[in-house]
């Protein structure tokens, strides 16, 4: 078999696989509709404010409930020592509310 044919077949196989993954994503998205709805209802019923992404520190567990002092609550000069604190951005409202005060 010609090398170009082999390569084009390989390429076609990969593209087909990618299309299959797109179809998988589409199917999963439809299938997840009721789950997302149930989770959204749970959030409304329990009045939850945050996603449970990190449980090591309060300010990354409830990212939207934190303030500028929370990461340093152990003592005024304590440095950030939880890894998740270095991955996440500070919540949007901190910039707004503190910006206004200052």
């Amino acid at each position, binding site marked *: 078999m010609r090398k170009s044919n082999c390569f084009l077949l390989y390429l076609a196989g990969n593209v087909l696989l990618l299309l299959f993954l797109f179809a998988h994503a589409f199917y999963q998205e439809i299938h997840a509709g009721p789950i997302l709805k149930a989770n959204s209802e749970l959030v409304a019923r329990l009045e939850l404010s945050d996603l449970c992404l990190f449980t090591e520190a309060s300010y990354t567990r409830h990212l939207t409930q934190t*303030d500028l002092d929370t990461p340093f609550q152990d003592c005024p000069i304590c440095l950030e020592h939880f890894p998740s604190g270095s991955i996440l*951005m500070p919540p949007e409202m901190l910039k707004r509310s503190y910006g206004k005060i200052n």
Partner: protein
Amino acid sequence: MGRSIERHRYILDFTLSSLFRRKGKNASLLFVYTLVVFMLASVVFFTHAIKREGAITLKNAPEMIIQRSVAGRRDLIPVSYLDKIQKIRGVSSARCRLWGYYYDPVRGANYTLMVPEKSGYGPGSIVIGEGVSRTRHVYPGDYLGFSAFDGSMIMLQIRDVFSAESELVSSDLILMSEADFRKLFGIQEKEATDIVVRVRNPRELSAIAWKVSDQFPDTRIVLREEILRTYDSIFNWRGGMMVFFLGGTLLAFLIFAWDRASGLSQEEKREIGILKAIGWETSDVILMKFWEGLVISLSAFLAGTILAYCHVFFTHSFLFEPALKGWAVLYPAFKLIPFIDLYQVATLFFLTVVPYTVATIIPSWTAATIDPDTVMRA
């Protein structure tokens, strides 16, 4: 048309043979290139899926949360604030929330304890998240012990466990009755953690927030739109480790592109010289180099994207786990819903395939326009 396709196929045949002649170098190039695409695509898929799921899940989050701040730290809010807040025009209802954290010395895990507005179970019962059940190996019917503020032990019976599908919001959650919560933390009846407010017209939210902060200067207000915005910008490229992660990946890619754009090896130049000497046109040489770039970059792009999809959505991002887990003992399983669209894949394609292919053509064009004799003698 047929002749043109056949010409491309012959050039592709020759290009593949040429690549196979330097199979060691090209295989390692392909491997590292695939790895770069894989890392980049994994980050894109993971962050986009979290953002979308967060936006859908949190669209029903409280419209307004009022917290009290004392000496720069969050403090319990007096229940007396509630009556005054309820009287503000535009507020449809307000309720005191009771919630907090509990450090479990047995497993070294942190739990979120919460009192729901309506609970089907009375005092002495709890509902736990899947993560708590997994960490403590406890199930409905079992008892879970909590050490109260005064040192006494409180035993609460598990009535139910939240479904695994809701782990993204409930993994570390423990729901309990108000009486048990107050007994556990010693919080008086006249105090609560914060106040949630519902308004009649969402467009009046900021006006109501202004009135609340005017009446209670010691409070801090969190609006739903801010909650949604926070999760929309979560894992933003500016966020700490993400800068280094994406920066490292892009730098590796730049080194590739630079290596290609900075010039060809002596062997490659000699090859171009011979091809020109036997009658190849400059356009043929450029076409050959275009195919060479495309074979490498397209193969790396397709393999990297497919592997990234499998990594994020089939293996629950196991490579990211150590970085995301940190020191946490209780760690939610990220069974993310694959929210991907053509825009994401197209962006990845233009970021990875196009620059490399272009970077391959430029030095070839320079070499192909030089006299074959000079190139071969160099």
